[in-house]
């Protein structure tokens, strides 16, 4: 894509891109370069001296059972968040696409959690599930379920999954609704005339036609679970109990800021960067395909 008509100036374009580039270099490239640099260094406890240790930090990480556990935790967490978030949103969007009466009311109620900060979402759900005073805890106790996410790792995981999914449903819902509304009605009508019921139409027409949107949302939700849920976790479990909810991003923060392990934290940052680059590449490859679709 190129413009046929362009303006000429030897200096103006540079002035126009300068602010964006200055911020990009100072706050993105410089720190990212430093992260790579630190990841090859070992610092003493006071940060006074450091020495080049090559890949030692990385080798150490992959021998560290806590780090490997954090990978597993992140995998479980992101699969749970992306999977249940997408399934619930698809169900709600399909229903919202069917109904006529009250559609705007449903839509309005379903989209507002997008506006809630991750940390605030965490606080709300932590309050509902608070071990001694939470209203949901009280109801669960009535069913004989002993709920205490502060000491039970699985319950802590469930709590952050619920809070994260609750916040993300609106986003998925809007994309699915847009996707559903762009499916040609003539296709569905033709199938109905041929005798296909609603369930049959859903599985053989709607689901295949929605697959690009679903795939896009899968990538977005995994990125969301990997990075943007930091606020949910920091406001509720803080990675605990016993690291049961310590996802990779939280571990970078914990090791770097709270334990001041610069080298180890930077090596983790570099690994995360590689993951982000892979996810972005997948996303862009897919978008090229979607354009042709």
């Amino acid at each position, binding site marked *: 894509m190129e*413009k*046929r*008509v*362009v*303006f000429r*100036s*030897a200096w103006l*374009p*540079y002035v*126009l*891109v300068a*602010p*964006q*580039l200055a*911020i*990009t270099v*100072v*706050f*993105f*490239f*410089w*720190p990212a370069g*430093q992260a790579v640099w630190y990841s090859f260094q070992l610092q003493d406890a006071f940060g006074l001296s450091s020495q080049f240790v090559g890949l030692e930090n990385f080798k150490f990480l992959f021998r560290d059972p806590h780090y490997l556990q954090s990978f597993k935790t992140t995998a479980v967490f992101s699969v749970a968040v992306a999977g249940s978030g997408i399934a*619930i949103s698809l169900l*709600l969007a399909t*229903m919202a696409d*069917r*109904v006529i009466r*009250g559609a705007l009311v*449903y839509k309005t109620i*379903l*989209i507002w959690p*997008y*506006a*809630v900060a991750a*940390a*605030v979402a965490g606080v*709300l*759900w*932590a*309050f*509902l599930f*608070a071990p*001694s*005073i939470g209203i949901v805890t009280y109801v669960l106790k009535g069913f004989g379920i002993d709920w205490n996410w*502060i000491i039970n790792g699985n319950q802590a995981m469930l709590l952050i999954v619920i809070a994260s999914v609750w916040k993300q449903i609106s*986003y998925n819902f809007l994309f699915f609704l*847009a996707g559903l509304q762009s499916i040609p009605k003539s296709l569905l009508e033709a199938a*109905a005339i041929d005798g296909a019921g609603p369930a049959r139409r859903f599985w053989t027409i709607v689901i295949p036609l929605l697959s690009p949107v679903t795939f896009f949302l899968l990538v977005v939700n995994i990125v969301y679970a990997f990075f943007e849920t*930091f606020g949910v976790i920091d406001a509720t479990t803080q990675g605990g109990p016993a690291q049961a909810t310590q996802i990779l*991003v939280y571990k*970078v*923060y914990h090791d*770097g*800021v709270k334990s001041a392990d610069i080298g180890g*934290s*930077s090596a983790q*940052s570099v690994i995360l*960067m590689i993951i*982000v680059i892979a996810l972005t590449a997948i996303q862009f490859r897919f978008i090229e395909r979607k354009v042709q679709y």
Partner: protein
Amino acid sequence: MVEKRPLLDVVSHAILIIGALLIAFPLYVTFVASTLSFEEIMSVPMPLLPGDRFLENYTQVLTAGTTTGSHAAVLDMLFNSTVMALAVPLGKITISILSSFAIVYFRFPLRNFFFWMIFVTLMLPVEVRIIPTFKVMADLGLLNTYAGLTLPLIASATATFLFRQFFMTIPDELAEAARMDGAGPMRFFWDVVVPLSKTTMAALFVIQFIYGWNQYLWPLLITSEESMYTVVIGIKRMIVGGDAANEWNLVMATAMLAMLPPALVVLLMQKWFVKGLVETEK
């Protein structure tokens, strides 16, 4: 509607109502909790109808925070959040529209290189470069400043893409006519490009307002003084220990105040919000 299926309509409404109730339930409990006294909220189960402490609780947090946790006044935090929520979108729109104008309407050495530099920032979210970015901010003396809170967040590859994509749809005839009439590039920018981009700007503004307001990790890293807390950070600082030790009624009043502005933006500007969301993520 393809055909009439009364039973399926009932099921659809039932599922939507259950979904809406589950989504809205935390909001309702938060509101109720924010109107209760400390004693009421500590009783198990807590009342599920609003109490009479609405004014007391909100006045207390707005002016003096909590008594056991952070004492910072929420009013100041709301001000800081507003600064972030306005400065981030305005800064982002400004630098992105300028750089994409240069990239689309000029041919100059390093043009593609600059474009790729901006593109790569997509792959470097704050979360992956926590420690080094903090060091850079400290070296530049930007800790606990508004510039530190906002500047690093205004670089944006998505906004630049969005403007670039939009500029490609502006007919070449407009630029040609402007050039023939002797208008320079900046004249063309102000009189043609900016007015045409208003829709794109509005959509971006709504999305970025929410993004700026809801920032968490970034202000957590670079603000240590109470006077610089944003409201989202402030809530976190009010939670001091075990769940019975917190003044949940005050925490929940603060949570309501933290949710209200972005929620209003989403509800009142729904059209721009949906447009911004669907387009910026393409």
